[in-house]
């Protein structure tokens, strides 16, 4: 079973990532498993999902907007954002939008070209699970969350920017 980093711990990955679109028949064949469907399939099959055995999440391409899931965010246990290349930063904005604007509280997972050197920024944007690229060393990667002890900006991890805390401390 694949391993990933979730909530800063290295754990087994119980989810099956379905990369290609599926129809109802294909989904039935995955019954009993926790699956992450392409956004389009998730939206198409949305009404059948409560009936299937196993949990169902959705993954978004870099060009897909999280707003399309807005009405159902309380029901989705897992949303994954895909990084086709690590230098494509759209997922960072989508993550913050999901957490800060849309109030999503489930698992937010980074998939694709996910590298240890980006974990710190990703976690501050609201990702809490990281399916790193296969060649990455998970033990070394798990240390990267500690790269910085603090940061200037407001973030999902700490909603108060430093300027609000800094003053609170000195007064």
């Amino acid at each position, binding site marked *: 079973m694949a391993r990933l980093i979730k909530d800063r711990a290295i754990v087994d990955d119980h989810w099956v990532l379905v990369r290609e679109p599926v129809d109802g028949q294909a989904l039935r064949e995955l019954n009993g498993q926790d699956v992450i469907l392409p956004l389009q399939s998730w939206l198409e099959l949305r009404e059948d999902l409560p009936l299937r055995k196993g949990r169902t999440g959705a993954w978004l391409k870099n060009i897909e*907007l999280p707003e399309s899931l807005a009405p159902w965010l309380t029901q989705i246990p897992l949303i994954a954002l895909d990084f086709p290349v*690590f*230098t*494509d*930063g*759209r997922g*960072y*904005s*989508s993550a*913050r*939008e999901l957490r*800060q*604007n849309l109030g999503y509280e489930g698992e937010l997972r980074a998939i694709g070209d996910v*590298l240890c*050197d980006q974990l*710190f*920024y*990703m976690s*501050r*944007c609201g990702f809490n699970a990281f399916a790193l690229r296969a060649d990455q060393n998970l033990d070394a990667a798990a240390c990267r969350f500690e*790269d*910085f*002890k*603090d*940061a*200037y*900006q*407001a*973030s999902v991890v700490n*909603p*108060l*920017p*430093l*300027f*609000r805390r*800094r*003053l609170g401390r000195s007064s």
Partner: protein
Amino acid sequence: MYRYDEYDHQMLSDRIAQFRNQTARFLEGKLAPAEFLPLRLQNGLYVQRLAPMLRVAIPYGMLSSTQLRKLAYIADHFDKGYGHFTTRQNIQFNWPAIADVPDILAHLAEVEMHAIQTSGNCIRNTTTDQFAGAAANEIEDSRPWCEIIRQWSTFHPEFAFLPRKFKIAVCGTQDDQAATQVHDIGLFIVRNEEGELGFRVLAGGGLGRTPVIGKQIRAFLPWQHLLSYLDAILRVYNREGRRDNKYKARIKILVKETGIEQFQRKVEKEWLALKDGPLTLTEAEFQRCKAFFKDPTYLPLEPFSPELEHALNTDVLFAAWHNQNVDAHKMPGYSIVTLCLKATGIAPGDITSEQMRFVADLADRYSFGELRVTHEQNLVLADVARKDLHALWTALKSQDLHAPNLGLLTDIVCCPGGDFCSLANAKSIPIAESIQRRFDDPEQLRKIGRLSVNISGCMNACGHHHVGNIGILGVDKKGEEYYQISLGGSAENLTALGDIVGPSFAQEDIPDVMEKLIRVFEEHREHEERFVDTYRRIGITPFKEALYGKAD
């Protein structure tokens, strides 16, 4: 000046440890070059034609004498004894070894300096007017706002992998000296009818391949909302900016393709979600940052200095320098002095370690220990007592730092070009020198008057050639280095992009071309008109005819 507290220091030392780890992994072959690339760029490290280049940030151009001495130390110990000031108020070292860079960064951290986000597809050093806080015509000191933006942009987790680089400039003076209109975001500090402070916001300006003047997206943004509004602009750009073509990835293309009104709507929508949240700036934070930039302890001086008058009346060379390089200060008895780093035969913006230490001593002695770097690649002592000007000038002469050509034809803005840069199509430094050698008569230069010449070695436009009164762009013509001339550009209040005059010229023709252009100007000039004003009045045709002959 802004001073670090324990938070700033901690973040900087964490960053160095992080980069030390990344550099070690790269050198051991455990981190692929393509994966190290954006990491090193966001620590200022390029791999250039001859050696790596390290670009050190000088936030909004402010530099203390202690910091300048540290830069001299780095130039001596890790480089070849000199540095190069850039057109974005930074400094570059052209010869460090990759393995040394973490140590160099540790040295910089000792004096509260860094190389963070001086390159890469992220938010770069925020720039401003080099006279901020001292200028006679200031609306509001821009530096506290620049520092607030510096902290907001430093290690911003959402905007480290933008479609392309992102540059912000802030202008707080009546006469824009920061080229604010040709930045990705330009912020003009303004007051509304109620006298409240805020910003006029421009977006989508930029030079490079497709030069564009920024468009206003907000006439008045109350200062409390500065950071949430910047977040909103950046989020729209990060999500929607083009990533399919590097040359169309800047925000200016997005604004152009989206249309300014539609872009504005998207920003406002994003902003509404963030507005009045924790990003809202507080009076306390503004005052905290402002306190770092309070006036130095000026002496109560008479506006009139008999020592200065005497020197001006008896020393012609000093008077010429004073006339050109000294600007009005807000305090009586004080002046702003610019050291023009454009002596003939020296690459524009270059300074030796010996000169750095010398200038640092002068800053301590004459200008409260502080300096500024200008985007025209010069240095400023912003708070010099007028009675000391002659002594200062005498000292500058001993280090060849007294070039009296500020703002004149030989005060050339110039990128490192083909001598150093791997992007360049053509050399730029030798072109600057050939022009300086041709126009070597100070009297003639003064007569020609204010004229900006900007040279870029390629389309990326680091020499800002689009906004030079005379712009020179290096192009590749079947493997030969050629130069395209544009006229009428300006980065001032009336910002304009230059018009290309015609087919390009060979390197050796450039001094003659410049002479012909000047001759046309002199023939048509009315009164004391500046070159750019004559150009605006008479248009390109007379210049074209002088260079290429009359069209039939």
